[in-house]
């Protein structure tokens, strides 16, 4: 018996939204030093309907091809875009308590510099953005605090018109001043970009008096963003971009109460040792000043956070439920998490990530007779094997090349991901189609004649590098999700094929990041050698893949590996307006990356993530990446 291993061929099918999701979003995600990328000004187009609910039999390459299609990105246009107040869904009922699981405790309650998923999930329900992603048409952007917005004809000025009737829960009115106070923090170069400040890569750069001297007072704030009146704000871009507003719409770009930020001297610039008062859940409860659909009621570090309905929420008829209880289930509590779902003590996960493996999701769907549905999030994670090129073992590119040839990607997908994985291509299907990559040496099946040749070639390369019998290496992996499982399979494969042996060190998430970080310092090779890692996608775009893995300062490029050719390809493709031409550039780059002439990241696959939701929970449509849709204001319980 082999539960659910082979039973879900349709899961290989990536929903069509994947590509359309975030096309042409010109930004390398997360990396603070990543240069801003001008994106193609996209034409208004029909949005792909979210295909999550009705998985098709479309093979992956085609789904990936969807990226070539124009997106729904609001085009630079002079016509004001008016957003209608959401009308309650037909038949929606009010009341009840939603019980959700969280995969980790929140680190920050203040979005400034925040780039952790568990954090954004917790604070998202308490505040609003200027604009947001639609909860039904999950790739479309709609108003949140803004009732409408215009874009100047040259595409360089965005003007947002706020709603009239909005108040903080302490009774203060929500005005442009709140937006200016909040977003000037995100724009301030003294603060790390995090994910809340990703939009700043497109606007005029904010200058400060003396960054190195510690004077972070902005000198050109009005040129970046300004309040025209109490209800109107303006953002100025460096170049026309349809991507700007997408990053303003993600849940990280929250607007906080300006009068509290201005009153606390610790808030303007992030300082880990003297944090802004709003960074503590306990303070948020005490101050009682939020705007979102829910109000934080109770928070116990490491255990739970409970929120109650905001009765004065400015969106009519929202939210539907009276209360949400988030309970934190860490990696140690996997069985408890499953048990609580089976016993009906939980209604849904509070995001598209838990510590469960694909197999466990599918088993849970089965054991509850489909009461719970694991909604796939296609553009999940860029899984890879991270080689510390500063270490002697991986100095030779021959060794790295050998590893790239010897890894059996299909076996990893089968044994660890229950065959739920997506593209094996280094650029995640955004360049070559997966069908093409699966014919390449190293990626083709090890059972084929070609695959056997790859193994022989890998051995030859090892011999050429002078390590014919392999070597010892230390694997370092975070104890999150099924990262350690991947490492065990990879280790065994490299041991069998190349004689590379070693121990696996598992570390808690935060400690693991700290260890990887040790390799960033110049002149230090760091305390780790090889790691099984993943880069969660903010947007599904080639820029994000480059920025996460292949550019200096990238979130998963801890050795600051860099190659001039790659930088060149990156710069060329990010300004290329023609989608096909851009894809051609990326194909060239992809072939070179896979040749491993010089590379540090052995791509394993594009991993799919899942958002587990009970069927009684209505008003849910899965987003296309794992990084947004956490306000939960449209959810209701059909019980």
């Amino acid at each position, binding site marked *: 018996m082999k539960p659910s291993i082979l039973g879900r061929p349709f899961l290989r099918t990536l929903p069509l939204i994947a590509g359309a999701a975030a096309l042409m979003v010109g930004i390398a995600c997360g990396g603070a030093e990543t240069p801003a990328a001008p994106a193609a000004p996209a034409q208004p187009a029909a949005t792909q309907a979210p295909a999550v609910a009705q998985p098709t039999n479309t093979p992956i390459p085609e789904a990936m091809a969807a990226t070539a299609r124009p997106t729904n990105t609001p085009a630079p246009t002079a016509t004001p875009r008016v957003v209608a107040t959401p009308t309650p869904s037909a038949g929606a009922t009010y009341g009840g308590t939603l019980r959700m699981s969280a995969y980790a405790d929140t680190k920050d309650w203040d979005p400034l510099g925040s780039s952790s998923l568990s954090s954004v999930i917790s604070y998202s329900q308490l505040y609003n953005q200027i604009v947001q992603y639609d909860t039904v048409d999950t790739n479309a952007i709609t108003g949140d605090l803004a009732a409408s917005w215009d874009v100047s004809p040259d595409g360089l000025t965005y003007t947002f018109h706020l709603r009239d009737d909005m108040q903080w829960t302490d009774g203060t009115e929500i005005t442009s001043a709140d937006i200016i106070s909040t977003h000037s923090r995100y724009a301030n170069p003294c603060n790390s970009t995090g994910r809340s400040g990703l939009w700043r890569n497109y606007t005029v750069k904010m200058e400060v008096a003396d960054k190195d001297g510690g004077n972070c007072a902005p000198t050109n704030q009005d040129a970046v963003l300004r309040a025209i009146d109490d209800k109107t704000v303006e953002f100025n871009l460096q170049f026309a971009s349809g991507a700007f507003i997408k990053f303003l719409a993600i849940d990280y770009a929250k607007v906080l109460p300006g009068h509290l930020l201005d009153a606390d001297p610790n808030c303007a610039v992030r300082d880990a040792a*003297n944090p802004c008062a709003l960074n503590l859940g306990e303070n948020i409860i005490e101050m009682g000043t939020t705007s979102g659909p829910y109000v934080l009621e109770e928070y116990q570090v*490491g255990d*739970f956070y409970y929120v109650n309905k905001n009765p004065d929420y400015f969106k009519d008829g929202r939210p539907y439920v009276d209360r949400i209880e988030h*309970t934190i289930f860490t990696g140690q509590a996997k069985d408890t998490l499953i048990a609580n779902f089976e016993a009906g003590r939980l209604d849904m996960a509070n995001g598209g990530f838990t510590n469960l493996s694909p197999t466990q999701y599918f088993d849970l769907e089965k054991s509850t007779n489909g009461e719970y549905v694991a909604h796939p999030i296609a553009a999940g994670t860029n899984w890879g094997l991270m080689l510390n090129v500063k270490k002697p073992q991986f100095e030779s590119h021959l060794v790295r090349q050998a590893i790239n040839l010897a890894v059996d990607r299909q076996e990893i997908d089968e044994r660890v991901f229950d065959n739920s994985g997506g593209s094996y291509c280094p650029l995640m299907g955004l360049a070559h189609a997966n069908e093409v990559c699966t014919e390449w040496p190293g990626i083709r099946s090890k059972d084929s004649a070609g695959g056997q040749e790859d193994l022989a070639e890998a051995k030859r390369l090892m011999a050429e590098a002078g390590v014919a019998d392999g070597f010892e290496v230390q694997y370092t992996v975070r104890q999150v999700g099924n990262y350690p499982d991947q490492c065990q399979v990879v280790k065994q494969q490299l041991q069998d094929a190349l004689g590379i042996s070693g121990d696996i060190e598992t570390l808690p998430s935060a400690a693991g990041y*700290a260890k990887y*970080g040790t390799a960033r310092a110049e002149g230090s090779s760091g305390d780790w050698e090889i790691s099984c890692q993943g880069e969660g996608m903010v947007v599904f775009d080639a820029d994000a893949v480059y920025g996460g893995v292949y550019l200096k300062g990238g979130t998963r490029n801890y050795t600051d590996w860099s190659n001039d050719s790659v930088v060149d390809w990156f710069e060329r493709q990010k300004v290329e307006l023609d989608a096909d031409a851009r894809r051609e550039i990326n194909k060239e780059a992809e072939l070179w990356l896979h040749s491993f002439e010089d590379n540090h990241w052995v791509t394993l696959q594009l991993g799919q993530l899942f958002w587990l939701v009970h069927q009684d929970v209505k008003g849910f449509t899965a987003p296309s990446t794992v990084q947004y849709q956490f306000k939960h204001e449209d959810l209701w319980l059909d019980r």
Partner: protein
Amino acid sequence: MRQYALKRIALIIPTVLLVTIIVFTVMRLLPGDPALVILSEGDASFTQEELEDLRRQLGTDRPIVVQYVDWIGGLVQGDLGTSIWRSGQPVSKLVGDRIFRTLELAVLAILIAVLFAVPLGVISAIKPDSVIDYFSRVIALVGISIPTFFAGLLVVLVLSRGFGWLPPLGYEDLWDNPWKNLQQMFLPALALGFYDMAFIARVTRSSMMEIIREDYMRTARAKGLGERIVLVRHGLKNAVLPILTISGWQFGRLFGGTVIIESIFKVPGIGTLLIETVFQRDFPTIQAIIIVIAVSIVIINLLVDLLYGLLDPRIRYA
């Protein structure tokens, strides 16, 4: 007796001091610099300068002895420090919120354990090598040979698969809603107390076995007293002492067990906080939790010893 008590209480001071030194030293051995953990969490790149700045602010750049003296100075004044991870949150608040729940769990567990263990141990002792003896010994040994976490997971499995039921998530205070509180606490306490039940049953058995062979028992029987009276008045009364001692000692073990059981049953006590903070390298909070636990255990052991002395006049106070 008084002299013994005073001496015993005085000895607590060096013990507690040693406890703090051990905790502090082990904490500093932990790999992973808290400043580095804080800075690298956001994936943002940072400079060596920022790292050193943060270390200075956190005070982790100072010599370890200075840090220790500083910390112990605060401790004496009742200041447990501030959490590194929960930036600026006083540790005493984090711990204070939770200690009561862990304590409730531990007390409930020991009550359940004693309630089952003593009868089991006594029966086992008066009828050695009988079917009942072997049965109760097997039960007791199962308790000892099953790791606490496995017992906990089995309880969860049986309940959720067998009955489709689990204790409600979250936490309701004993005073606010005793019924819901008991629903939430009984099963974790049972799983937690299983080991201790087994252990106490073994101790009860062996101390009863020794006592049964004592002369005074023979005398009591010879006097013509009924077997039951002999057992309860003379036997159990004398067996209470070792049982008491062991139960007191077990309390320490229970605190350890709560670390595991709380994470399985989602009880928001200091155990879950400890795991969370160990993994986050939040030194002040870890130190505070361990100190609180260790000092509680030292005090409980002291009380047990004193009680022991009060109850058993044979003890010599040298």
